[in-house]
């Protein structure tokens, strides 16, 4: 005599397998003309990609999927082969990436600058000074200073300036220094609520809404120049990389059309980035 509950269990088991297979949403097949680009949170939050990528798609039909992380993490993503190309702003780290064989070549794309923002009342008296002097004054005044502390391009640039000011390890050497291990926007939020000083890229600053009492205090210093580069991940290392499509983007963004698109991105009439391909 067939035990009914047993056959029922068997049929239920098959139904389970069917449901599991059918519910997993499959990645859309139309992803053949799509690439993954690792970039930085500051670049994404500036709104540049929302402006740029639709133009690229219109010109080539290629979809660019941006994963935004810190520069260090973005390059790591490239090393793991999880991205087809990287678009970051830390020339030293980028050259290392190419030298290690993970990228084909680095092409300059655009630049913006960093600024130091802080309380408009400026208790440390840094307004108008050059960056090195400003940092020395901040250290002396023991003012609160927020750092991203996340291996990003901005963080690297910040540490570089502290070094130039004679402080190798600001986390130890500067009394009011606080590192959050977070993105530019989050760090700005902290600075705004703590009324602290902070080094930020101008792009994020211009699109940041929660300014509280902060204002730009130090700018224009040549040392605060922030260059961006694009690197296609080397298919010799990761054969699945969509080299042709990724190269199409790298070529477009340094072309006259791409550079014009970058220049046309403005907030409140001010351009956020200065195209400088070929430099």
């Amino acid at each position, binding site marked *: 005599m067939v035990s009914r509950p047993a056959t029922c269990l068997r049929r239920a088991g098959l139904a389970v397998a069917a449901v599991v297979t059918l519910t997993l949403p499959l990645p859309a097949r139309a992803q053949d003309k799509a690439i993954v680009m690792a970039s930085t949170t500051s670049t994404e939050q500036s709104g540049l990609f929302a402006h740029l990528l639709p133009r690229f798609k219109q010109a080539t039909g290629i979809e660019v999927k941006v*994963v935004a992380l810190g520069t260090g993490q973005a390059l790591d993503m490239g090393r793991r082969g999880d991205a087809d190309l990287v678009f970051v702003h830390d020339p030293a780290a980028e050259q290392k990436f190419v030298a290690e064989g993970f990228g084909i070549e680095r092409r300059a794309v655009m630049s913006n600058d960093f600024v130091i923002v802080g309380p408009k009342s400026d208790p440390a008296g840094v307004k108008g000074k050059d960056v090195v002097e400003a940092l020395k004054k901040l250290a002396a005044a023991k003012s609160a200073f927020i750092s991203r502390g996340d291996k990003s391009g901005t963080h690297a640039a910040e540490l570089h300036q502290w070094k130039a000011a004679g402080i190798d390890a600001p986390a130890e050497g500067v009394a009011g220094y606080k590192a959050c291990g977070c*993105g530019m926007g989050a760090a*700005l939020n902290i600075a705004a609520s703590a009324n602290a000083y902070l080094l930020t890229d101008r792009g994020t600053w211009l699109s940041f809404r929660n300014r509280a009492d902060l204002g730009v205090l130090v700018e224009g210093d040549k040392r605060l120049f922030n260059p961006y580069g694009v690197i296609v991940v080397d298919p010799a290392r990761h054969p699945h990389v969509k080299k042709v499509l990724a190269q199409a983007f790298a070529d477009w963004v340094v072309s006259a059309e791409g550079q014009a698109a970058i220049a046309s991105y403005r907030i409140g009439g001010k351009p956020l980035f200065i195209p400088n391909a070929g430099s």
Partner: protein
Amino acid sequence: MSAFAASAATAVDLIVHADPGLRRIVALSLQVSGSACAIAAVLGLPLGAWLAVARFPGHRLLLLLLNTALALPAVLVGLVVYLLLSRSGPLGAWGILFTPTAMVIAQTLLVLPIVAALTRQFVGDALRDGGDQLRSMGASPLACALLMLLHGRWAVMTVLIAAFGRAIAEVGAVMIVGGNIDGFTRVMTTAIALETSKGDLPLAMALGLVLLAVVALVNALLGLVQRGQGPALAGAR
């Protein structure tokens, strides 16, 4: 307080205008978390029922691991799944990193322990009451446990609501394995995180209110279903 009021107003505005970008984000949240919940139900309900009756050597250890998994941080699950699905990882050839599929997998792993552990508990309790009777009627121990899923179907619904809530509210896992890609893997929680880090706090809060409204709607619909069964259960306990 005015920040909250402004956010509430923005939330209503967003819902009323039903901006396509927002609609896509809401739809993806529901799909990803709904799928994860469905898969976790299909796997976790029988698993929980089985655990209520299984007596093999080491079943206590398995129970300990299951209960510990209830406290899995979402970011940790996201990280583990990322490392598995990364091109440099064991399952890289699947190529599903940064897709909704990866997000479903991560959330399923996150809520499966909830479904299994809670199911084990209420099935175990129900078996204390009626296990003997079902065994007497000829059911095997596993069949008894599975019948208790039918008997305790309202408890099952509560468990699944809890699992769905956990899934749709988490941000750590979907952020890491999905990448928060605009138009592809951005869901409500990652959108809130993004707007917060951009400093647009009122918008972030408004999105949060929209998320709560969507979940409230889902729960209200489930409540309607339950009430539809109400007359049949009038007076029954």
